[in-house]
């Protein structure tokens, strides 16, 4: 914090330059007793860059507008420290998360802070495309030529000959390729406005780094688009050096290959990006996405408790679709629903099942371990899940394809020939809709009309809608008897 006290009545003041207010005063989220220091190793480059960013945000008055995206890597815990908005993104995906933030919150300052393992390996696609779209965000890319958090493995940025845990004899370009120069790569794209590489080493270069960070942030304030600052940074622990030698190593080994400098600067000609108002009204979103079709007002909520349903069959039998139908209809009824599919990679054949929960209360987890109702569309499904059904529950058996009876006596068994009934309508593929009808006959959670609404929005052909409606009715009538 910069505190200012007046020492004279004229023009001399005493100032203290200390911890910027864009750092939390104490790091409450950090585990352990020590809430004042970072989790970084002694001499780590991250701390310096955090400080430079925090200082810039404070002095530019941007702290309250900033969303700081922590990556995966050592800086995964940046949200312990930054007194800004914070989001922690999955590995490599910070630029994708940043894209969403920058578009939805156009007055926010979006900072994607990423290491080299995160940005140049698993997140290569995200960074390249965010840069290529020219998103109005700033990326600080911390390049220390190694995976730090996981214990010093080779990264795409590891120098040729550099020894790491996974290149114990040194990186060999013949087998592992060459260190990736991300700044040069990003600079070849049309959209980025400002790309610079700096080296966070001695006082002179730290100040260059400080300047680059400010310039990138200023560009974003002016909505001029995508800015990228690569910062060569130390990792004494994984380089197995003391902090002094690690600074020297950047200067002597990294800098000749990763040359510091401005790789692109279109600041002068870049025009501010226009702002578009994001749509947040749920009704408007429904209209745009075509989701309001066939949706009628939810009835007064029935007290149904929580019903856990598992629907299982061959891939292609429509078990997943049947579940989605039930869940969608339940949602339109105004109930809480979840739908969780589980299937192999095959489009047809293989096995597929889905778990559906329909409840009058909020649902804690979409996992169904003990279903109240099992809809078994084929024999392997009955064999696999019969024992999982909760005592007092029910199994609806596709008797067209399952030649055995339910063996348990503590549950209700209902036999409906889904496939035959569907075939009778001339549409064997509608076995799943027959199953839905049979289910509703046993478990009247809502009126069949809800399913019809879903069918009307799922099929384009009027004929298909009508056949499926008839299939629901067939199953319903059969299931009642």
């Amino acid at each position, binding site marked *: 914090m910069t505190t*200012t006290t007046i020492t004279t009545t004229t023009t001399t003041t005493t100032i*203290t*330059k200390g*911890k910027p207010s864009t750092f939390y005063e104490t790091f409450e989220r950090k585990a352990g007793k020590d809430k004042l220091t970072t989790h970084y190793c002694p001499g780590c480059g991250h701390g310096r860059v955090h400080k430079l960013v*925090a200082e810039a945000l404070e002095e530019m008055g941007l702290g309250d507008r900033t969303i700081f995206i922590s990556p995966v890597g050592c800086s995964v815990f940046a949200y312990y420290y930054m007194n800004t908005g914070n989001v922690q993104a999955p590995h490599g995906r910070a630029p994708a998360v940043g894209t969403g933030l920058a578009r939805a919150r156009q007055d926010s300052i979006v900072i994607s802070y990423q290491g080299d393992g995160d940005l140049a390996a698993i997140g290569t696609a995200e960074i390249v495309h965010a840069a290529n779209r020219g998103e109005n965000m700033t990326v600080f890319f911390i390049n220390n030529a190694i995976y730090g958090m996981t214990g010093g493995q080779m990264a795409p940025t590891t120098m040729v000959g550099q020894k790491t845990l996974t290149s114990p004899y040194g990186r060999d370009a013949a087998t592992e390729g060459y260190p990736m120069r991300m700044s040069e790569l990003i600079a070849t794209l049309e959209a980025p406005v400002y790309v610079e590489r700096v080296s966070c080493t001695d006082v002179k270069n730290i100040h260059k780094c400080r300047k680059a960070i400010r310039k990138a942030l200023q560009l974003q304030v002016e909505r001029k688009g995508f800015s990228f600052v690569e910062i060569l940074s130390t990792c004494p622990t994984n380089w197995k050096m003391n*902090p002094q030698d690690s600074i020297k190593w950047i200067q002597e080994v990294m800098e000749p290959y990763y040359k510091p400098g401005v790789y692109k600067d279109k600041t002068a000609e870049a025009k501010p990006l226009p702002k578009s108002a994001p749509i947040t009204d749920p009704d408007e979103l429904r209209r745009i996405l075509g989701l309001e079709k066939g949706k009628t007002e939810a009835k007064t909520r029935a007290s149904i408790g929580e019903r856990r349903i598992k629907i299982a069959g061959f891939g292609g039998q429509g078990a997943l679709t049947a579940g989605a139908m039930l869940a969608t209809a339940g949602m339109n009824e105004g109930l809480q629903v979840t739908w969780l599919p589980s299937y192999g990679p095959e489009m047809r054949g293989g096995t597929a099942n889905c778990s559906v929960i329909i409840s009058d209360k909020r649902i804690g987890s979409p996992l169904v371990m003990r279903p109240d109702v099992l809809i078994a569309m084929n024999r392997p499904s009955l064999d696999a899940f019969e024992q999982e059904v909760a005592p007092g529950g029910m199994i609806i058996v596709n008797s067209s394809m399952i030649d055995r009876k339910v063996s348990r006596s503590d549950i209700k068994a209902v036999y409906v020939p889904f496939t035959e009934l569907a075939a009778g309508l001339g549409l064997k593929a509608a076995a799943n809709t027959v199953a839905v009808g049979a289910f509703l006959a046993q478990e009247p959670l809502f009126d069949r009309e809800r399913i019809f609404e879903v069918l009307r929005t799922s099929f384009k052909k009027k004929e298909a809608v009508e056949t499926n409606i008839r299939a629901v009715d067939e199953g319903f009538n059969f299931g009642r008897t």
Partner: protein
Amino acid sequence: MQAKLPFVEIKSNQCKGCALCIDSCKPKVLSLSKAFNLLGYQYAQYANAGCTGCEACYYACPEPGAISITKEKKGAVSA
């Protein structure tokens, strides 16, 4: 309490002993302690004289709050 301006203040229990501030210090008025702090590190300390207020140590230090610099600023309108 007021030391001679400018001066550097090092919170010994926030120092991890990396000594990068010591290297960065032109007038060479910082050194490493013999004693250990609560974190188990030998910490940087100021000789209590000779600081020029250049802020080099502030930027060299990776810890957010370990180092602060107090100095006079001329020509500033009171805030």
